């Protein structure tokens, strides 16, 4: 590598053009190539962050993709992902600055997982693989670059989590319950990218359960600890990650809808205990819909629960990923071929 390139990397890092890790400098020729792969012109308006008076043009997303180390082949995926990130439902500015320390969780599903070489088996939630790492990094860099009012707003995450550098999960191309995106109305044959803001994953270990019920009870218990953010506002939800060994038991007793119903009905805590523990305000706001002397679910409604199938065989683990309470919807976009 030429000395000048190293100097350019240092310049980017010293001047606020970085997520904390070294970046590929956004040379014009590389950004042009990326724009062509994404199917946009440099000046195209691809989103607006109205409350920050910011208009986002395509060259910003293309430069960020180059800097994150994305390959040109990722263009169609990056197009849909950029649109999802700038969708007002996602609340990108809120995710950037919240005390909740949330990251952008990116879920890739459908045939594109194999086409682009995403890791969906070993260490599926944090794979050392270029597609997972750079697409996940692109999403966090967009959050950081576009959500901070041009650098005026500073993030306030109290503890945050490592996913704020990269957090991308790819689903098995072949699933027991249908692709992830079918939970958001897209056809099973589609390739899709779904985003939501999320806390870090909680591992659910169960090596001795012999039924699907025992696995879902373990998952439900993991959603139910006192420290879970969801207890008061309940506006986020959870992603449940079920790898093959646990799925082998669960699928014998439950469809995806039945599993959701079971968790919603059974994963609950006594509201009075939550108040006593300080997890719910004694004088709650109406939005929280607190009913004393009743069992409370960390979910306000069933549609806040989704399931993804990924991870390797040979270990009896699942995981629960709590979504941040401040961006209440999953934004799911189909990935289409880019027209040249």
């Amino acid at each position, binding site marked *: 590598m030429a000395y000048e390139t190293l100097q350019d990397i240092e*310049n980017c890092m010293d001047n606020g053009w970085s997520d904390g890790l070294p970046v590929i400098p*956004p040379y014009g020729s590389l950004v042009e190539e990326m724009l062509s792969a994404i199917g946009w012109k440099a000046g195209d308006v691809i989103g607006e962050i109205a*409350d*920050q008076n910011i208009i986002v043009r395509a060259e910003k997303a293309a430069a960020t993709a180059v800097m994150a180390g994305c390959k040109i082949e990722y263009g169609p995926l990056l197009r849909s992902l950029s649109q999802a990130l700038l969708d007002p439902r996602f609340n990108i500015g809120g995710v950037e600055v919240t005390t909740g320390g949330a990251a952008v969780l990116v879920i890739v599903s459908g045939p594109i997982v194999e086409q682009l070489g995403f890791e969906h088996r070993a260490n599926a939630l944090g794979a050392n693989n270029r597609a997972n790492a750079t697409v996940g990094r692109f999403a966090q*860099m967009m959050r950081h670059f576009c959500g901070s009012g041009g*650098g005026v707003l500073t993030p306030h995450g109290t503890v945050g989590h490592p996913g704020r550098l990269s957090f991308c999960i790819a689903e098995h191309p072949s699933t027991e319950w249908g692709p992830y995106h079918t939970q958001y109305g897209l056809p099973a044959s589609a390739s899709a990218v779904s985003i939501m803001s999320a806390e870090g994953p909680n591992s659910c270990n169960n090596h001795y359960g012999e039924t699907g019920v025992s696995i879902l009870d373990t998952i439900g218990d993991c959603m139910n600890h006192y420290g879970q953010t969801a207890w008061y506002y309940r506006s986020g939800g959870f992603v449940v990650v079920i790898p093959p060994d646990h799925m082998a038991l669960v699928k014998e007793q439950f469809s995806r809808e039945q599993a959701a119903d079971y968790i919603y009905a059974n994963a609950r805590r006594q509201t009075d205990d939550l108040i006593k523990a300080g997890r719910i*305000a004694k004088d709650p706001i109406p939005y929280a819909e607190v009913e004393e002397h009743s069992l409370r679910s960390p979910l306000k409604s069933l549609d806040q629960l989704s399931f993804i199938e990924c991870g390797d065989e040979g270990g009896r683990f699942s995981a629960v990923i709590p979504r941040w309470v401040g961006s209440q919807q999953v934004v799911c976009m189909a990935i289409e071929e880019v027209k040249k």
Partner: protein
Amino acid sequence: MTEKTNTLDALKLPIAQLISCGDISCELLVDPIPRPAPEPIKVRLKPKQSRVVLVDHQKPNSMAILKLTQTILRKRGVEVNDEILVKDDASRPMTAAMLNLLSQEGGLVLCGISD
């Protein structure tokens, strides 16, 4: 003992332009960061009137802290509005209507208080 840095003083905005120079020529790098346009809203740093307006942003314990603040300030002789305004959603920016209303306020607006 560690000296604390004032966050606002330490805030270094990302640079708007970077140039890469080789032996023969230079080229501009593409700025990845969208900037606000027009300038972000300007606020008066010193209130015109000696009055405090409280705004609850609905984060945990915000209302409880503001009510206590109201009591303490009044005991100290500071005029504080009776009504504590409430922002709709803790996680989303203030609505334009509320921002507009508060931008006309001559007193000190206290918002974003919680634990």
